[in-house]
């Protein structure tokens, strides 16, 4: 699990109408995220933890924190599996 998820720096992106459009320059693949995934994407700066992101989601969508955290974890894993998110801090901690 990415404790401090971070956007993959090898990707180009812009936010369009509140949703992220991401280009992978190496294979020209285009990813489009929905609003919730875009919220995680824009929050994933490597400084905010999963708990921080869940807090933002809970406040924005008015859902209980445990629900928001479960959703955040699921989406972060999905985005990480696609290579869109990386977690340098977690990797650094694992390597320490």
């Amino acid at each position, binding site marked *: 699990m990415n404790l401090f998820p971070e956007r993959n*720096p*090898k*990707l*180009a*992106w*812009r936010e*369009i*109408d509140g*949703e992220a*459009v991401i*280009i992978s*320059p*190496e294979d*020209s693949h*285009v990813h*489009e995220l929905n609003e919730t995934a875009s919220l995680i994407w824009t929050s994933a700066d490597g400084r905010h933890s999963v708990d921080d992101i869940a807090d933002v989601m809970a406040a924005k969508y008015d859902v209980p924190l445990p629900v928001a955290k479960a959703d955040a974890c699921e989406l972060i894993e999905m985005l990480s599996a696609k290579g869109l998110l990386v977690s340098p801090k977690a990797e650094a901690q694992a390597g320490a």
Partner: protein
Amino acid sequence: MPLSLLIPGTDLREKALSRYREFTAHGEGGLPVVLRSDAQSVRRPECKDPNFSYVLDDTSMLLDSFGAEFHGVRHEYALDSLLRILLTMVLLPQRGFLLHAATVVRDGRAYVFTGRSGAGKSTVASLSPAGTVMTDEISLLRFTDGCWQAYGTPFWGEFRAAGQNEHYPIAGIYTLVQSAEDRVESLTTKEMIRALLPCVLFFTSKVEANEDLLRLLLGFVGQVPCERLHFRRDDGFWKVIAA
């Protein structure tokens, strides 16, 4: 600023002079191309630090502030391909890009019809009066003189022509869908970006350049009317887009 091409080989240079003849004359504000040989070259003998280089087998293209230099290119079609790659690099910082699109001029304004292969670009071109088609395959779109304009290119699909070294303000851009009726459909910014991205010619894997492209396309979509055009295989579509 002319696009300066150094082509050492006489045979290829003569073919290029013929292929790009409409562009080697400096059109006013168009896309002027200058073809140079070794003898005419003022460049240093070896270009060791190019801004951009592209090497494929024994073929190479180098780009620096002097212009572009081609070596080992034996066929005009290969030169065409390299020139497209070169243009994508040169145009980006000049707020321009190449798009798989046909462009037709009507009443002094450019109508740009985009889509992947088979979408109907050549069909639209074939349904347009002679002399009004700037290209049926690859359009050059660029922000100049305070607005987005379509420039003629020497790149053609089914219609083989020399092209027109001219430019016109863009009236609108239309993503093509062949249909049983003629109608236009409004698109959101995201839908238009989604439609444009697969049709933009872009060859660099640099993240910054891709960010710049996205930023440029967003500006383009924000400033040019963008719609999806459902059209039959006749010229009735003009009634719905020029309405």
